[in-house]
């Protein structure tokens, strides 16, 4: 329906002289009434909103405005889908890592924002990968290695980026301090975590933990702040954290948390530059913290711990941490037996490999806590498929087929290491207009 205000007004049965018509037009000229226009733009779905930037320079200015994005950013902002890194196909010529997208709503599919990351034209080999995702922004990384003839060792040249896939905006981070020459080997980052909560602040921080490659001495933490654009050292060096998984940091409660296989959660309170620890709710021998992308997950202001044990079990407990770190409480008991028996693919895996040792024919990629209890769900991967299990309703839906794990294969091996090459390999996608 093409309707033009001028024509519409002319079609009305009123006799207007030129002056009246001028008045009428200016009074209905919405383009100049920013407050009303803003009310309309705020109600557009995100993709329509971005398309509307093309309408005129005025509209683009309104939509791109920092204050507009603060109001428009949904709050609460549930994730729309999950990126999974594809297992590299040896026959393919593509070297850049590819991402498969799992939409969470099986009916209203969200189009995948990207398949590969190629925002840095200088990056030719190895490509760009996602390290961490936080409330709409993603921390990405490209890594070059070359052999240094002088020191006779491999030199790493890493670039770090913060990327917003919704608005396709990226910024390259300056390098952390003392990242020169071959000192890199001894001081390689053990893990980088992005700390971003648009509800609290439009600025983000990046926490970098560095340590020796083969020793548990001298871990240091450096924090980058987007507010002042620079890195600073946080607190004093510490030791004895060889069993802590710094690659799987979780940002919650103004702190970054890492799980340690010894049975505690090691965390850094960002603004206080203070580290501390708190015991995990359970601890098991031979515990495989990398089996699922968790056990730690943060969403909607809570820190959750997922406990699946023994390994062959289809049942799991989800524990929630209190904000003052005083204790855990059980939030959910989940029994996946009902779901998994519906999928013969899981039986095949168990039958094929189960006689060697207990095998769990599924991987949990994420747990999303909904606004209402019945909206919480898990996203599982079984061979060839992604499934959404609604915790409160005890129902499930098939979300999509997964190319990356053909039948009988999962993207995570039994020792927990992602076959995708780097752990963790699943990243949540949130729609966000936040500028990087």
């Amino acid at each position, binding site marked *: 329906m093409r309707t033009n*205000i001028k024509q519409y007004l002319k079609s009305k049965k009123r006799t207007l002289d030129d002056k009246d018509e001028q008045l009428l037009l200016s*009074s*209905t000229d919405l*383009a100049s009434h920013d407050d009303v226009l803003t009310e*309309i733009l705020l109600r557009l*779905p995100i993709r329509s909103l*971005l398309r509307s930037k093309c*309408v005129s320079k005025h509209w683009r200015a309104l939509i791109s405005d920092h204050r507009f994005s603060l109001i428009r950013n949904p709050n609460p902002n549930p994730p729309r889908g999950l990126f999974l890194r594809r297992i590299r196909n040896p026959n393919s010529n593509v070297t850049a890592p590819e991402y498969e997208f799992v939409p969470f709503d099986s009916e209203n599919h969200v*189009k995948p924002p990207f398949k590969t990351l190629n925002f840095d034209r200088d990056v030719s080999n190895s490509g760009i990968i996602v390290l961490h995702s936080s409330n709409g922004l993603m921390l990405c990384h490209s890594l070059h290695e070359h052999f240094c003839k002088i020191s006779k060792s491999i030199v790493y040249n890493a670039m770090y980026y913060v990327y917003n896939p919704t608005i*396709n905006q990226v910024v390259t981070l300056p390098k952390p301090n003392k990242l020169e020459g071959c000192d890199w080997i001894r001081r390689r980052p053990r893990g980088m975590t992005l700390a971003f909560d648009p509800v609290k602040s439009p600025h983000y921080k990046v926490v970098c933990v560095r340590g020796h490659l083969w020793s548990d001495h001298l871990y240091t933490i450096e924090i980058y702040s987007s507010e002042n654009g620079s890195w600073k050292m946080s607190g004093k060096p510490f030791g004895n954290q060889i069993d802590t998984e710094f690659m799987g940091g979780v940002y919650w409660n103004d702190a970054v948390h890492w799980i340690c296989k010894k049975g505690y959660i090691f965390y850094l309170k960002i603004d206080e530059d203070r580290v501390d620890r708190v015991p995990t709710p359970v601890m098991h021998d031979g515990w495989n913290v990398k089996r699922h992308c968790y056990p730690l997950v943060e969403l909607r202001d809570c820190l959750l711990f997922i406990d699946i044990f023994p390994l062959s079990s289809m049942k799991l407990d989800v524990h929630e941490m209190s904000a003052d770190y005083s204790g855990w409480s059980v939030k959910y008991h989940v029994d996946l037996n009902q779901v998994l028996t519906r999928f013969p693919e899981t039986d095949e895996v168990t039958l094929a490999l189960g006689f060697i040792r207990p095998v769990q024919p599924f991987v949990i990629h994420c747990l999303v806590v909904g606004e209402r209890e019945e909206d919480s769900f898990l996203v599982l991967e079984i061979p060839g498929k992604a499934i959404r299990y609604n915790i409160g309703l005890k129902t499930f839906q098939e979300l999509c087929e997964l190319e990356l794990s053909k039948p009988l294969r999962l993207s995570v091996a039994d020792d927990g290491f992602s076959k995708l090459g780097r752990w963790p390999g699943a990243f949540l996608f949130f729609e966000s207009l936040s500028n990087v």
Partner: protein
Amino acid sequence: MSQTVVLEQNAVETQSITLKFDGCSSDANPSPIVNPENQSITIKFDDQASNHHTIPVSIPNVDSETEAAVNEFLRKHGSSDEESVRTDAMNDLWSFIERQEIGTVVVLVKFASDVKNFELLEIFCQRVADVIAKKTVEEVREIFNIANDFTPEEEQAIRDEHRWAFED
């Protein structure tokens, strides 16, 4: 709900009438009804709090059917505190608006903003957003009568930047 006050003229000599009523206030002009038999005057008051909803408004640049629908909404919405009545009123107005041309709705948005009626603004803005969400950029320009001030290169640059928004 309305309250009725009955006045009886007792003393013939008195020409003044004292009105007393409790609780309610209203700007609506009461029209007295005179009962010739006992010479009593009945005045009915509407005791509703939000008075401006009950007075019919005049909306420039829309046809009478639209004006009537908006006024019907205002009357119904303001007549009760009950959630179901208000929701019904909103649904009726919403169904009506969906059948109107987008040009009408744009005019109504402006009206709602001028009179600062937030319920109306919500409904009309949402309708405009729903309609333009499915339109192409050119169609949106037509609706709002906006000239394209981008060069072709500038527009293409935006489309490239937000490929995710444009491809299907």
